[in-house]
């Protein structure tokens, strides 16, 4: 669908005319330019993928050129020693659990905050804002101690809660502004039917939250997938490690070797990008709307 197709009204007055051709030409040109810009934005990623297929000699001699042939050796080496599949499963399991916690706790907390505008609500919102503003490297030591005291170390539950805490403030903000925009009449009808608060929340409000939930899930996914300090701190069992830990272990940080760095980087990001590609329509479509309404 091009610009002119989208608006038959403007096209109707033309039979066969140069104006239409000029328009078409311009439209193709604009599409080309924007696609070109998007392509430029993707160049660093192309560079990353390209590097991952080069032998060390190729990287040395021609840092920008295309690899002569796809050299899979780097990947073989990475896959052989990263414990890849296991760590991907762990990351996915943890990610999904965090999403569930954040979505439920966030939406629940947002409901009263959106509906009751008073001092209590404002205080609670302030508390949430404090969470949003805290740089998380500051709180590492206290968090460890709290986890130890609660017996949550080295457990999936612990790491899920820790991650959930990081994104919960954001969730509350998103849901609050979204729920505030839902007409109150919907609830009043339900209340007349003698529904209690929980039933209203569950049957009336919750089904409407899908777009925000999608956006929020994306944020959670990105954070959980990429963070490695929390897993490093809170998980010691090798079998519970996440993808980024596997990448980090493989690459190390003294004398970064491109033949290790780039394939590990690609492998580390790939599952997330695939998930994103599969769900992108759902996530993006009505999505970020949640943040905006």
């Amino acid at each position, binding site marked *: 669908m091009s610009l002119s197709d989208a608006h038959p009204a403007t096209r109707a007055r033309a039979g066969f005319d140069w104006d239409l051709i000029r328009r078409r030409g311009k439209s193709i040109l604009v599409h080309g330019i924007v696609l070109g810009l998007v392509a430029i934005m993707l160049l660093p990623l192309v560079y990353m993928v390209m590097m991952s297929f080069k032998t060390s*000699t190729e990287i*040395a*001699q021609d840092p920008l050129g295309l690899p002569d042939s796809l050299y899979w050796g780097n990947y073989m080496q990475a896959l052989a020693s990263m414990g890849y599949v296991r760590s991907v499963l762990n990351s996915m*399991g943890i990610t999904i659990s965090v999403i569930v916690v954040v979505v439920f706790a966030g939406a629940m907390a947002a409901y009263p905050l959106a509906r009751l505008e008073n001092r209590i609500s404002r205080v609670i919102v302030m508390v949430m804002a404090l969470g949003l503003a805290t740089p998380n490297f500051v709180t590492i030591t206290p968090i460890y*101690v709290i986890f130890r005291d609660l017996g949550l170390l080295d457990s999936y539950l612990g790491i899920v809660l820790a991650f959930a805490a990081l994104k919960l403030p954001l969730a509350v903000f998103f849901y609050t502004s979204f729920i505030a925009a839902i007409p109150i009449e919907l609830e009043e009808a339900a209340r007349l039917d003698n529904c209690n608060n929980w039933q209203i929340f569950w049957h009336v409000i919750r089904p409407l939250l899908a777009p925000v939930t999608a956006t929020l899930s994306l944020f959670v996914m990105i954070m959980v997938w990429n963070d490695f300090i929390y897993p490093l701190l809170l998980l010691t069992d090798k079998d519970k490690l996440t993808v980024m830990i596997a990448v980090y*272990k493989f690459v190390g940080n003294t004398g970064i070797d491109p033949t290790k760095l780039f394939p590990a980087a690609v492998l580390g990001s790939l599952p997330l990008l695939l998930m994103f590609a599969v769900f992108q329509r759902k996530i993006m479509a009505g999505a970020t709307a949640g943040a905006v309404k």
Partner: protein
Amino acid sequence: MIRSLTAATTIALLLASTAAAQTTLDVVAWKGNEAEPAGLPELIEKFEAQNPDIKVELTFVARKDVDKVIPPRLQGGNPPDVTMVDSALVDLWGGAGFLTDLGTDSPWYDRMIPAVREVMTSDGEIRVYPLEVIGMGNFVNMDLLAKAGIDTAPVTIDELKAACQALSAEGIAPMIFAGGFPAMLFVGANGIDPDGISPSEYGLGERSFVGDENFNAALDGVRDLVAADCFDPKLQAGLDPWATAPQEFRSGNVAILPQGAWNIGNFSSVEGLNFQFAPMPSLHTEHGLALDLVGPGWAIPRDAENLEAARKWVDFFADEENLSVFLTAEGAYSPYTGGVSTMPDLAAPYTEARDAGSLILWPFSTLEFPKPLQTEWEDSITGFLLNIDEPNEKTLQRWDDTVEDNL
């Protein structure tokens, strides 16, 4: 999605149950991963074969993250059974009482090289089993040197300058000199006279850097290298000493890279890279100065759950045969007297300087220079390279201020 979580949990439980009957020795180290295996996978296998009731679980934590991840565990009373430490950590954690005394009556204690023993012993306790002393100096690409008609790695300042001029006449980039680390090695090697002033005098504030003859000469020496076309000082600030700088050497784009011997293994794996490891040219010696870094060791935290197994682990490394596996993989020297030589031939120039007694222990690794001074060196030497014509005093004064701040 719940199902995949359940599946993951089930797998975890299955895996955990097979190991249930044994002691699991929780070891944390910043070596032993893919990029720097240090022979540990092999050693763990051997250790487990000798101790069938112990299963070793090695967790890799990069050195910079050790500071974030381990103190909470020590403080929380839930530390690893054995953890890798360097002198800064021994000082900090040991000083706070979180590490056990391994006992100055341990058989290996007396075999330790005296200088190392002195550094590592505090309050009459030895809280670390030192694993290595590792060299720092110049990696030299011999093929590139040969193109410029030179066949030995430069070990004196004059040789270095001559090599630079010959290389740059051939259109070959002679040297990496990034302020973040490589340049520090040159400045240290020229500022510290092995037979002269002890570095601790500066570190304790008893002697100031400003006006100090040696360190002024060291900075002037950097200018001489620039004059000899060794490097473009401004360019060096853009190189990362841990990522892009080694890559330039690996790629054969530059002839000389000041770095640590821990890169030997990695560089050796590059096909067609013919290099040697040489001591740092210094004003104070004809042999070149070997800069020995007192490397990491094993420590057993006070609250370790499996003290006995942890002891066995340390004793296992005290066996020379086992230690030499580690040292060979690292390209390091034994911190114990009478240790077998484990260095590859390509490090012969460095070993020669060492044997000739042309050697200092890197003052940042012995804490003779306080830790904040290291950051200040990184920053200020980069600043110096960016404005190379400014008086030395400007740089040296910053070091004095940092030392004073830290007292």
